[in-house]
């Protein structure tokens, strides 16, 4: 179902947002390859490009894929401007707060990153004008990808450990955090774990991907979302207003985050958080937030990584003792975290066929 839903969502996105020539090119890509499509990159005066399972391919006018940009559809400045207006629902002023953060959140949880000329007012970004590049990133919630990690984080049927998820960029921190949130919120019969009231402070709108206040991702039935709010302020607001049992935040790092996390712990509320780091020692060296991994800090540390295209996850206790190492077979599927599938089409099969398709269309007619 996930594959079918994804294609339906994708087609809706195409019809709503893309200018005609780009729409024609992207809709020419076969469904099975659409499953592998992660990003569409539209750059003024440059060839249309897609990112398929982490690999860049240029997209021709009829949808053929090539690593040679000369066969690709060349994007005009006008098309970039038209796309930008469509993404903003013809109302740039209404998306101004998003734009100055560098992206626009779209219905369905997708996101469009934007580049152009930045206009400052004092020290703050006031606007981005003359848009030159747009990167449409397709949202994919992978339900079940955090199941095996989740088992390691349960303290008892009504409680979980304070947990920190660490990894370098693009190793799946946010994806795992999102699924953990869903699992904690809904509870789990097989673990006899009762769901907990969960509060998400979604500073960068990536966890819930809220569009006009409605979360586009499933974060569980007991979850409240504070969207676009700084973590340091959001944690305090949630504590005061929503009486959560667990607070979930992505990418700890700002100096104010430390006090906010400690405030939650003092109130008896658990924190599940992520941070950029190559490992526990790397995180501990960070000024400010590093102290959160010291004694009386996070009780479980999950390290995510990727070696030769294979993802792995390591769960440790607060002393750095390994509790388990979860590996996987494939760069795209989440293996032991929970297999991702697209109906009858396995990821490996899709990848093989994508390669054949790309080879066959390398020299377009």
């Amino acid at each position, binding site marked *: 179902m996930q594959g079918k839903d994804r294609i339906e969502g994708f087609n809706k996105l195409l019809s*709503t*947002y893309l200018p005609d020539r780009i729409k024609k090119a992207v809709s020419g890509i076969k469904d099975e390859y659409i499953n592998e499509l992660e990003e569409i990159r539209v750059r003024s005066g440059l060839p249309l490009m897609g990112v398929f399972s982490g690999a860049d391919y240029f997209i021709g006018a009829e949808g053929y894929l090539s690593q040679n940009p000369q066969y690709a559809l060349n994007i005009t400045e006008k098309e970039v401007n038209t796309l930008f*207006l*469509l993404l*903003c*629902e*013809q*109302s*740039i*002023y*209404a*998306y*101004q*707060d*998003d*734009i100055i953060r560098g992206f626009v959140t779209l219905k369905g949880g997708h996101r469009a990153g934007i580049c152009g000329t930045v206009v400052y007012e004092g020290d703050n970004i*006031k*606007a981005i004008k003359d848009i030159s590049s747009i990167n449409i990133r397709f949202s994919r919630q992978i339900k079940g990808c955090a199941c095996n990690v989740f088992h390691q984080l349960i303290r008892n049927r009504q409680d979980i450990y304070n947990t920190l998820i660490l990894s370098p960029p693009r190793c799946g921190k946010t994806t795992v955090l999102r699924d953990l949130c869903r699992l904690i919120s809904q509870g789990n019969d097989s673990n006899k774990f009762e769901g907990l009231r969960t509060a998400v402070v979604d500073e960068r709108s990536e966890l819930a991907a809220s569009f*006009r206040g409605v979360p586009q991702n499933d974060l569980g039935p007991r979850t409240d979302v504070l969207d676009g709010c700084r973590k340091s302020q959001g944690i305090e607001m949630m504590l005061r207003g929503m009486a959560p049992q667990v607070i979930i935040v992505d990418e700890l790092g700002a100096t104010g985050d430390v006090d906010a996390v400690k405030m939650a712990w003092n109130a008896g509320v658990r924190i599940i958080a992520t941070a950029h780091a190559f490992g526990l020692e790397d995180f501990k060296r960070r000024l400010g937030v590093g102290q959160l991994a010291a004694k009386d800090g996070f009780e479980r540390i999950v390290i995510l990584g990727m070696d030769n295209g294979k993802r792995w996850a390591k769960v440790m206790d607060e002393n750095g003792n390994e509790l388990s190492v979860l590996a996987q077979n494939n760069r795209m599927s989440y293996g032991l975290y929970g297999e991702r599938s697209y109906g009858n089409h396995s990821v490996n099969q899709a990848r093989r066929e994508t390669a054949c398709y790309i080879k066959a269309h390398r020299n377009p007619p």
Partner: protein
Amino acid sequence: MGVPLFAAFKNIGKERIGGIWSEVFIECGNVMKEQHIDAGEAWRMAIESKGVNIPLNESDWQELSDFGEMLGKSDRHNQESILDLEKENLEMMESKAKEAMNTKGKLYKNLGALSGAAAVILLI
């Protein structure tokens, strides 16, 4: 996230403006939402389909057809300036119409309502 233009037009049509302009604003909002076109084009389509009975002369229509052209295409600060200018323009048209009140009795009321709408587009 602020209110996008299509929703602002519909809200004005339903809640902020009455009479014959109401339908024009609602139609404009609907056309923008359904056809994903800009405010200028949607406005022209709306006044062509729903504004036929509004008693305005040719030059007034000419002025009004450009009403939505710049809407939505810049940041809030710039949009406010555009709407201020639009409001001034409509008020001038209104005062001219008032001068010719004997012959165009209902006209100034129509323009007055429209200039009020221009002021609230970004406020709702």
